C-alpha cells in the first residue's frame, strides 16, 4: 500500500454557518459566512490561500456550465485555481480531499475547501425530485423506480429486520433510539437546525414517510455552508497551537455490484465497509470499536446510522441493536456518535455536510465543543455517504491530534 495521507496535512481553520431553513440567506451569503469564520479561526488572510475546492451545491438545475466560479467570485479569490467537485451527498468531503491532496502533493502549501447547499430555494419538502437532477444519465429517469431518498434507505430497514428476525415494532424502537439520541445532542448545539428533544414514543408514532421510516427517522433538509483550510503538517504550528491532523482520507465508489449483481444483502452499505477498512489501514487503527473516540456519520436516515455502525466495525454484524439500546453511541456512551446532532438535527445541506462533520471533530479535538464536549478524544471519524444504499460513494475521514 502507498504511504497514504497520514499526518501530512493539518487543518488550521474551519468555519460553519448555522444550518436550517435560512430563507433570508443566499448561497453566496452562506459561503461568505463560512469563509469569515474560517479566516478568523485560522488567522490567515485571503491572499495566503493558494487553491480552493467547492463542494456542491448539488441541486442546481442544469449541469452544463456549472463551475466553481460561484466560490471564486463570491469570495473574490484572486485568480487562484478553484475547482468544483460533486459526489452527491459526499461532495463536501470530496472538496476537502481535493484540498488535502493538493497540499500533500506539494503543489501548494495552503488550500481551502468549502461546501455549500441551498435546498430551501427549490420548493420541496425533502430533497428535490431526483428525476429532475438525474445523476447517472437520463436513462435512469425512465428505468429507475419512481423513488425518493427515504424510500431507498427504508429498503435497508425492511431487509435488515427480515434478516435478523427483528419485528417491525422492535425495529422501529431501535431506530427511534438512534434519532432520540441525535435530538438530544442537537438540542445542545446552537448551530443545529433542529434543537428539540423528542421522545421514543413521539418518534415511533410519527407519520410514516416510507415504511418503516417515519418523520423522525429522516434528517433535516437544510441550507448551510462549511469550510476548512488545510496546510502542510510541518507548517501547522505556525498558525495555531492546536491544529488537527488528517490521519486518513478514503473514498469508495460502487462498481455497480450492489445494484446489479445478486451478492449484495441489502443489510449493509458496501462502500462504507470498503472505505472504512482502507481508512483504518491508512490511519494505523487496528480496532475501530476501541480506538475511534467519536464519529459523525451520514445519518440521512436512522437506519443508515444503524447499519453504518456495523460497516465501520463499531458493532458486530447484526448486533447494532444491543449497542444502540445500551447507549454506547450516546454523548455519555463509550463511543459517542453524532455529538453535534448529526444530519438528523444539525441538518443536511448536501454539499456542506461532509465538512460540517469534520468541523465537529475539529472542535471536539480542540476542546471547544461547549456543552457537547467529550473527554479527551483521540481519533474522530467522519463518514459521508453520497447516493443510495445500492448505488453509493462513501468518504471516510479520520482526524486526530
Amino acid at each position: 500500500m502507498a504511504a497514504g495521507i497520514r499526518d501530512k496535512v493539518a487543518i488550521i481553520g474551519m468555519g460553519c454557518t448555522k444550518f436550517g431553513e435560512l430563507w433570508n440567506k443566499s448561497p453566496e451569503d452562506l459561503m461568505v459566512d463560512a469563509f469569515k469564520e474560517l479566516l478568523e479561526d485560522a488567522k490567515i488572510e485571503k491572499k495566503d490561500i493558494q487553491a480552493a475546492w467547492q463542494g456542491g451545491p448539488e441541486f442546481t438545475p442544469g449541469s452544463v456550465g456549472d463551475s466553481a466560479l460561484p466560490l471564486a467570485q463570491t469570495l473574490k479569490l484572486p485568480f487562484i485555481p478553484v475547482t468544483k467537485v460533486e459526489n452527491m451527498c459526499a461532495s463536501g468531503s470530496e472538496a476537502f480531499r481535493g484540498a488535502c491532496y493538493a497540499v500533500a502533493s506539494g503543489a501548494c502549501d495552503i488550500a481551502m475547501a468549502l461546501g455549500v447547499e441551498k435546498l430551501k430555494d427549490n420548493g420541496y419538502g425533502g430533497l428535490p425530485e431526483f428525476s429532475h437532477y438525474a445523476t447517472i444519465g437520463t436513462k435512469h429517469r425512465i428505468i429507475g423506480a419512481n423513488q425518493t431518498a427515504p424510500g431507498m434507505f427504508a429498503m435497508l430497514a425492511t431487509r435488515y429486520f427480515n434478516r435478523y428476525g427483528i419485528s417491525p415494532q422492535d425495529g422501529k424502537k431501535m431506530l427511534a433510539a438512534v434519532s432520540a439520541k441525535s435530538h438530544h445532542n442537537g438540542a445542545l448545539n446552537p448551530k443545529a437546525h433542529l434543537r428539540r428533544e423528542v421522545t421514543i414514543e413521539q418518534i415511533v408514532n410519527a407519520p410514516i414517510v416510507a415504511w418503516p421510516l417515519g418523520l423522525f427517522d429522516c434528517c433535516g433538509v437544510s441550507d448551510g455552508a462549511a469550510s476548512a483550510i488545510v496546510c502542510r503538517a510541518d507548517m501547522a504550528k505556525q498558525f495555531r497551537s492546536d491544529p488537527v491532523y488528517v490521519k486518513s482520507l478514503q473514498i469508495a465508489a460502487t462498481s455497480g455490484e450492489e445494484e446489479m449483481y445478486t451478492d449484495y444483502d441489502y443489510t449493509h452499505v458496501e462502500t462504507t465497509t470498503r472505505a472504512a477498512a482502507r481508512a483504518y489501514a491508512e490511519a494505523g487503527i487496528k480496532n475501530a470499536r476501541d480506538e475511534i473516540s467519536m464519529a459523525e456519520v451520514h445519518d440521512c436516515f436512522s437506519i443508515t446510522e444503524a447499519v453504518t455502525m456495523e460497516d465501520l466495525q463499531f458493532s458486530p454484524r447484526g448486533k447494532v441493536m444491543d449497542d444502540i439500546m445500551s447507549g454506547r453511541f450516546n454523548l455519555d456512551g463509550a463511543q459517542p456518535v453524532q455529538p453535534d446532532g448529526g444530519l438528523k438535527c444539525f441538518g443536511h445541506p448536501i454539499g456542506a455536510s461532509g465538512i460540517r462533520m469534520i468541523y465537529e471533530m475539529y472542535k471536539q479535538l480542540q476542546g471547544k465543543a461547549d456543552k457537547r464536549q467529550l473527554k479527551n478524544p483521540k481519533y474522530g471519524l467522519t463518514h459521508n455517504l453520497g447516493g443510495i444504499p445500492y448505488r453509493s460513494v462513501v468518504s471516510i475521514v479520520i482526524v486526530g491530534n
Partner: protein
Amino acid sequence: MVGITSYGAYIPLQRINRKVLANATGWSTSATSLPGEKAVANYDEDSVTMAVGASIDCLTGFDRNKVGGVYFATTTPPYREKQSAGIITTALDLRPDVRAADFADSVKAGTHALLAACDAVKAGSEKNMIVCAADCRLGRPGSAQEVIFGEAGAAFMVSDTDVIATLEGSYTLTYDFQDQWRADGEKFNRMWEDRWARDEGYTKFIPEAINGLLKKYKLNIKDFAKVIIPCIYLREHQGMAKALQLDEKQVQKEMLTTVGDTGTANSLIMLVAALEDAKPGDKILVTSYGNGADALFFQVTEHIEKAKNRRGIKKQLASRKELTNYDRYSSFRDIAPMEAGFRGEVGPTKVSMAWRERKVILALCGARCKRCGTPQYPYQRVCVNPKCGAIDEMEYYRFSDKKAKLFSYTSDSLAYSVSPPEMYGVVEFDGGGRFAFNLTDCEAESLAVDMPLEMTFRRKYVDNVRGIHGYFWKAMPPRA
C-alpha cells in the same frame, strides 16, 4: 388452413361495481340500470399496455423471433400520430423486420384487424401475425357510457400451421351510421339517443351480418356451437339471440356485466372465452358492431387442446380487486386530476436516448455475459460480476418474461404517485439479475420479503406539456 393459432387476454385487476358509479353520480342522472361491474385499467395502464399484456398471454410458449407482424386495434391510442403497434412490437421484443399497423377509429377495428391478418397469411405475405386489441374509452361522469364502458384487451396469433380455429369465412357491413362517436381531441364519447342505437343499429346490423354470412356460405345458425353477439343492451342481446332462434347454449355469455363494453376488444375477449371452452369441430360465429358489423366464421380444430394453458378470461375474471372509491377512479382516468405538486412534474424525455435504449427500456433487455453467464440489468458492456469484468462479451438477455421475487421493498408516501403510496422494491430475477422496480397491482400491506413477482408493461409517466407517454416495466404479484 389459415386461422388462429393462439389466444390471450388481459383483463385489468380492478373492477368497479356499477353501484359505485350510481352512488357517485346518481344524484345528477340515472344514466342506466345496467347491473354488475366493469373492469378498469389501473392508473398506469392504457390500451397499449393492455394489448402488450394480452399479447404476452398469447405468446405463451412461442418463439418471439418467429412473429411476423403486429396488428393493433384501438380507438384510444396514446398518440394521434405515432404508431402504437410499434411500441407493442418493441415491448414484446420482436424482430424489427415485421409488419405493424394500427387499426383505429371504429370499435369494429378489432375484428377487422383479425381479418386483415388472416388475409395477409392467406396471401402468403406473412406468418405468425399477432392481432391485439384494447380500449380505454371514457364516458363523461354521469353518462351511460361511463357505466357501460369497460377496459380490457385480447390477442391472437394468426398463421397457417397448427391452427386451433380456422377462419372459414366472413361477411362485413360498412355503414356511415352515427350512434357513438368521439371527435378528434375529445376525451369523452358522445351518443345519439339510446333507441336509435338500439333499434336502428345493434338489432339491425348484427342480424343482417349474421344472415349475410349464413347465406354466403350456405350455413344454418344451428351449425354453430357458439355465437358471439356484442351488445350494450342486455335485453336486446337476449332478444337478438331469440330472434335468430339460437339455443341458450349456443349464445356466448355476454361480458357486459363482468368487464363492460371494451370497444375494439369487445367481441374478441368473448372469442377468447369461447375458445377456452371450445372442442374440436366446433363452429364459432363472431360478430362485431361499429359503423356496420363484421361476422366471422371459425372452425375449431384438434389443436385447440394445445392452447389451453393461457391466463385467458376465466382466470382473469376470478383475479380481481374492487375499486370502491369513485374519486380514485376519476383521478386515475384524469377526469378529476388530483394535485400533483412539484414532485408530479414531469421532466423532458430525451427521445434520442429512448430510441438508443429501446431494448433496455421498452423490451426490458439487459445483458448476459458470454464469459461468466451473469445476467445483468440494464445492459452493461463491462460485466458486473466482480470476478469476471469481461468487456464487450455480452448478449441481450430479456428479463420481461422471467419470474422474480421481492428482495426488499418500501411503500413511499413522499414520492409522487397517482395512487399513493408509491411502492417499489429490489426485484431479484430467477436465473440471476437484480434491479429496483416500481410495484403495481398490489397493496402496501401485502408486500413481503421473498414474495413472488412477475413483470408487467406499464405507462410510467405522461408528459402532458410535451405530449410524451413514457412506458416501462413494473413488478407485480402473479395473478392467476
